[in-house]
């Protein structure tokens, strides 16, 4: 039976000619579109993760602690939940970085009679502490320190980051869903049409007593092979596209979103893509079992 099914599926594929080619190309295109979107959001995700790493919350201190007091204070800060790291910034260091920020106008700082900047602690939150809610809680905890004068930075930046993420996720979900829908509809329509074209044939097969499996399994297998082929081609196209586009896009990316490399799909991602193709194809083939044709 297996031999029969495989043989029939292969012969169908050979015979289907242009239709089979079209189906494969459509699956390829759908998956390429999905894949491009996937690669992009994967890399944007990396950028977001990197930005999140750069989130800092600044705790301004009421007075500059003596060098002996600093280690104990830092230990208390580091022990707070959601704190990944903390760095002490003395008054002198703060002035130095203000000068760096002023750049052209650094002369202003030199003319100051005394250093007006407070000492501070630069807190790096954990991933949980970098979410809007987590950051809010962390800021409250830091503000509760007796040494803290004011807590700044971080909050708006984190909020802004989360807005970006939500924007990307919303748009991405919309485009992704439309593409996936188009891919599924395309595959099912073309198989329905193929089926319609051969309804006459499956009807005759049934009339001469062919069991359902002998009619359906080859169609399923054929769809699976087409889908797999489409997915392989899509993967190839994506790889070639990545290879060609990366040198072009990477300088742009590092200048804009601050990520220097355009990563390709991970091996599990590739397997998922192949499985999606095979699944799509098999689904189409299964639909093409041809009990009811078209009006």
């Amino acid at each position: 039976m297996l031999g029969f099914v495989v043989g029939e599926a292969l012969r169908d594929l050979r015979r289907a000619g242009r239709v089979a080619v079209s189906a494969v190309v459509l699956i390829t295109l759908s998956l390429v579109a999905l894949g491009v979107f996937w690669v992009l959001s994967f890399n944007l995700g990396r950028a977001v993760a990197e930005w999140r790493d750069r989130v800092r919350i600044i705790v301004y201190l009421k007075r500059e602690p003596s060098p002996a007091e600093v280690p104990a204070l830092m230990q208390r800060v580091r022990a707070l939940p959601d704190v990944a790291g903390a760095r002490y910034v003395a008054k002198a260091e703060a002035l130095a970085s203000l000068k760096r920020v002023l750049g052209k106008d650094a002369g202003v700082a030199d003319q100051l009679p005394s250093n007006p900047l407070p000492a501070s602690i630069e807190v790096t939150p954990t991933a949980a502490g970098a979410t809007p809610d987590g950051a809010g809680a962390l800021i409250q905890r830091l503000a509760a320190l007796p040494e803290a004068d004011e807590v700044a930075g971080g909050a708006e930046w984190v909020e802004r980051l989360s807005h970006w993420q939500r924007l990307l996720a919303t748009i991405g979900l919309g485009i992704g869903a439309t593409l996936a829908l188009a891919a599924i509809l395309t595959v099912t329509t073309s198989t329905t049409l193929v089926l319609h074209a051969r309804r006459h044939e499956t009807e005759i097969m049934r009339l001469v007593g062919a069991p359902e499996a002998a009619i359906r399994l080859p169609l399923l297998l054929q769809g699976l092979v087409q889908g797999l082929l489409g997915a392989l081609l899509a993967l190839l196209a994506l790889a070639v596209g990545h290879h060609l586009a990366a040198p072009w896009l990477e300088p742009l990316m590092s200048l804009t979103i601050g990520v220097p490399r355009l990563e390709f799909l991970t091996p599990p991602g590739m397997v998922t893509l192949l499985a999606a193709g095979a699944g799509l194809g098999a689904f189409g083939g299964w639909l093409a079992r041809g009990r009811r044709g078209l009006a």
Partner: protein
Amino acid sequence: MIELHRVSKVYEVGPVKVPALTDVSFHLGKGEFVVLTGPSGAGKTSLLRLLYREELPTEGDIEVLGQPVTELSRAKVQTLRRSIGVVFQDAKLLPGRTVYENIAFVLRVTGTARREITARAFDALRAVGLSSRAQAYPAQLSLGEAQRAALARAIVRQQPLLIADEPTGNLDDAMAAEVLAIIKDIWTSGTTVILATHQARLARTLRRRTLMLEAGRLVKDEG
């Protein structure tokens, strides 16, 4: 073998009801050779279609090879069909397969061994005089050749029942005689045969039991 009890068939064409068979009953024993005759549109093809359940009767009961065809599950219908050889009036060859593949197909679905398939398919093709056209597709055959290919496909599995709907409709007299001789051979080897024809002359020359339909009613059962 075959038993019809008060069978009627009414087709619906939009709002119009077309009665194709009305109150038909008869019995056919194992090993019989029966000729079904009647003018064009009398209901011959409709009657045969009920036997291998291409259609369900509007009323009545049908038994074929000991099975109540109206009550069979889909899988059982396919099994029943595998024990019936049918020469369809319009041949019904698979359009995408060559003559040889058409015949091999019905052997493959019953799980016949590959080597045996080739031998038996060519035996059948030789019997109907088509071995030289084995590699042609149905669209490349004359209508008479298509009908002979359909006959070859119907006899290659050597089933207990052969249904032949106008198997000589598109053949000249000499070839028709040959085809009838083949069918008689098969009958002699034990197969029950039911043959439909609109040619009254042919029905007479066969000198077998004859069922005559007229406007869907069985008007004669003799011989």
